[in-house]
């Protein structure tokens, strides 16, 4: 696994030695150290499902994600589609090379897309459905043919289809591709190249001098991995790292008032929800099948307290399952969900859930008490605070729910077997709502799919099919708004909050210009940072 390019290491040593002896601030190469608790496990882009920040720096795509659901041109300068939406033509940039100097044209782009489809590249092929042919008409023209028109061709399908140099990959037998882990797998046409990597320790990226948009202002990015969140926050405090993204909420108080640290937050496609299990063959109590009970639970949740205590203010109260971060797809007609204990109590009283034995807990008509298992996963310290607040709210409406923490894996196992009552989950996804809307379809209830609640409606499924082929953006938006209305009424998920993505950096050493960052990590690292002179 050890990946070493000794000439590069030697260069770095020499550069540092030279810098040390010359000490002219303007001429020194700038180095941004990024702290994280997890760099990457698998470098191979065909199988790697994490480390998208680094992959965004190594590889490029035809079209790139920008803020919200917007996109900008990448290796493709422009694009157009035929009347029927079946044939897409992309004009590919001229003069682009991979970081190893080989050309990157429409030929390489066509090869990459075809290769992903032919070899069923696990991490990428799910995006490339409905593509029947990819062809390079000439080095600057790429043509993609679809089996049916899709609304998200530009906004979603091509955003992760990295264009790779064929000469690295084409001779690897298909069954060995997934296991191929040579450092050369990181070669792409992006703004940085990997020069050193020690798994579990660090990764060094140097600016690609031949990058077609121009070399990055920061010469070197060093990722450092820390064993725990406390050590990570402390590393920022003592200046061992310059930048952390995805700052854990529990780490915020320690750095909030530090004069050298700037905290930035932005609404992202992130949210938290409470899944309610009411599948017919699940193990949850029958009372959860009653929409009145689910509504009362929803009303008993003090979302503002969750935001204040668990997210330290870096979140907005949630209501629709499409996040505010998804822009126009978010249904603004869905009203705020009130925190109203009195009304929740009244609803339960009227529905006949009364505390007949005087123990403070209401009973269902068959005499069983309203007692639920309330769980969260152990991946973040904030999670326990959230279910504690939910549990307190439930106690106020005569429902007993003891908060429990389990490992992510055992919760997934519970979810797949529908062996739970209430589980709190934190989510993040792509900006295109296709995947998220698929979660509540009947099909996703089978074989360990994503539908964990028991909601299954032919009406919703028909809307899902309709949005998948609606080419008119307004039409698609209307359909997705309707889907949100249905889910908001049925409540398979109680949407708790839309959470911010939080980053923090050393402002005594770097200036971060959010205007240069276009919100994605690639752009934040490519042009967002510039070194404070003399630091």
């Amino acid at each position: 696994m050890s990946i070493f390019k000794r000439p590069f290491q030697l260069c770095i040593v020499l550069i540092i030695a030279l810098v040390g002896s010359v000490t002219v601030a303007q001429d020194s190469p700038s180095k941004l150290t990024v702290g994280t608790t997890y760099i990457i496990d698998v470098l191979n882009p065909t199988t790697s499902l994490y480390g998208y920040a680094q992959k965004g720096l190594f590889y490029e795509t035809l079209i790139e994600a920008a803020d919200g659901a917007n996109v900008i041109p990448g290796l493709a300068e422009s694009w157009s589609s035929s009347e029927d939406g079946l044939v897409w033509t992309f004009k590919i940039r001229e003069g682009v090379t991979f970081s190893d100097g080989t050309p990157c044209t429409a030929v390489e782009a066509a090869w990459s897309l075809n290769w992903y489809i032919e070899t069923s590249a696990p991490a990428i092929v799910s995006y490339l459905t409905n593509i029947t042919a990819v062809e390079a008409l000439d080095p600057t023209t790429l043509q993609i043919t679809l089996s049916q028109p899709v609304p998200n061709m530009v906004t979603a399908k091509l955003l992760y289809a990295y264009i790779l140099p064929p000469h690295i990959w084409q001779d690897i037998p298909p069954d060995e591709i997934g296991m191929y882990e040579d450092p050369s797998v990181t070669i792409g046409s992006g703004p940085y190249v990997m020069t050193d990597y020690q798994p579990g320790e660090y990764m060094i990226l140097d600016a690609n001098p031949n990058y077609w948009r121009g070399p990055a202002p920061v010469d070197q990015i060093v990722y450092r991995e820390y064993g725990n969140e406390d050590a990570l926050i402390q590393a920022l405090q003592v200046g061992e790292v310059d930048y952390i993204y995805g700052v854990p909420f529990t780490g915020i108080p320690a750095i909030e008032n530090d004069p050298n640290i700037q905290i930035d937050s932005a609404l992202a496609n992130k949210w938290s929800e409470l899944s309610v299990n009411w599948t017919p063959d699940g193990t949850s109590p029958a009372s959860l099948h009653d929409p009145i009970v689910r509504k009362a639970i929803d009303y008993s949740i003090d979302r503002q307290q969750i935001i204040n205590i668990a997210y330290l203010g870096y979140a907005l109260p949630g209501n629709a399952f499409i996040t505010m971060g998804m822009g126009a797809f978010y249904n603004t007609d869905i009203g705020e969900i009130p925190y109203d204990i009195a009304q929740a109590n009244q609803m339960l009283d009227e529905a006949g859930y009364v505390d007949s034995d005087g123990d403070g807990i209401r009973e269902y008509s068959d005499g069983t008490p309203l007692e639920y298992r309330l769980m969260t996963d152990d991946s973040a310290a904030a999670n326990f605070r959230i279910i504690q607040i939910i549990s307190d709210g439930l106690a106020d409406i005569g429902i007993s729910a003891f908060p429990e923490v389990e490992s992510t894996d055992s919760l997934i196992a519970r979810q797949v077997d529908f062996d739970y009552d209430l589980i709190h989950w934190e989510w993040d996804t792509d900006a295109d709502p296709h995947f998220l809307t698929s979660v509540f379809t009947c099909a996703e209830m089978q074989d360990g799919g994503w539908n964990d609640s028991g909601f299954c409606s032919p009406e919703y499924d028909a809307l899902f099919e309709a949005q998948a082929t609606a080419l008119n953006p307004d039409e698609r938006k209307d359909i997705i708004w309707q889907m949100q209305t249905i889910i908001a009424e049925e409540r398979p998920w109680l949407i708790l909050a839309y959470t911010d993505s939080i980053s923090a950096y050393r402002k005594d050493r770097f200036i971060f210009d959010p205007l240069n960052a276009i919100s994605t990590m690639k752009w934040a690292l490519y042009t967002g940072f510039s070194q404070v002179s003399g630091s």
Partner: protein
Amino acid sequence: MIQFDYLFRKIVFALLTLAVIIVFNFFLFRILPGDPIKLLFRNPRMTKQAQETIRVQFGLDKPVWINTERLQSGDIGGIFDSQFGAYISNLFQGNLGISFAQRSSVNEILAERIWRTALLLFAGEVVAIVGGIIVGVVAAWRHGTWVDASALIIGLTTWALPTFFLGIILLVIARGVLPTSGMVEPGAAKEGTIEYWLDVGRHLILPATTLAVGSASAYMLIMRSSVVEVLAEDYILTAKAKGLSNIQILKNHALKNAMLPMVTIIALNLGYVVGGAIQVETVFSWPGIGRLIFDSVAKQDYPVLQGAFLLLAVSVILANLVTDVLYSILDPRIKAS
């Protein structure tokens, strides 16, 4: 020197222990709830078909224990066409499998990590043994004085402190002065150069100290009571009567006998030190086996966990075997029993 059947018995016992551990190791991780592939690919970017491909790639589509399907169809040979069968047959070929999370050979991952943990344990243990013995002997020699009392109080306190807690305290105290994470400054020096090893040394100070303090107090307490006991023996009085100097008495008469329990405790302690290494490596982000185990538990990376546990088990068994042999050399009475 060593009786053959004594050694033989010990080796057979060690091999038996190893066999039990190998089987236990396999099932230990599989009784955990959940499914490693589900966890790895609980990701919208992964289609069900791709999940199945990977399940087959890692042999997770096969039954865990024995293949009853093939047995029922009359194929006796196919009974071990299972995850367990593959695990055992790979193990005998020296192949620990492929990591679910990292997609590379567990042998390579462990080889990369083991020497780092060995370095940390070695540094920590050397400091602990030398420091523990010296303080223990001094405390015993000054038995009942303030030196003894303070050594005892400090020893008991540090012994009772959880390793991770001590680590966090040291981390806060030393921050800004000593490096608190990792093994090297990324890219600062070329591997193998003097600068590189100096850098490793600087990064080693905090984790090794944390590890050493816990062990040292244990060694100190044992050494102290052991020396105190020996010093009360009649032969020490005889030595004094012969007019030997204090140093001579300590060196030739007291220490030799007091060292016996130390050998046992050092070997036994190895198992605990390994456990401590998991905590220390996590606190100080030391990229060794301990942190690998910590991360792999979260990811349910069975092959890595199996490999790492096997490695640890083998080292503890070996250490015990060596102790037994050493013990029989040091103490002639052992051989007879």
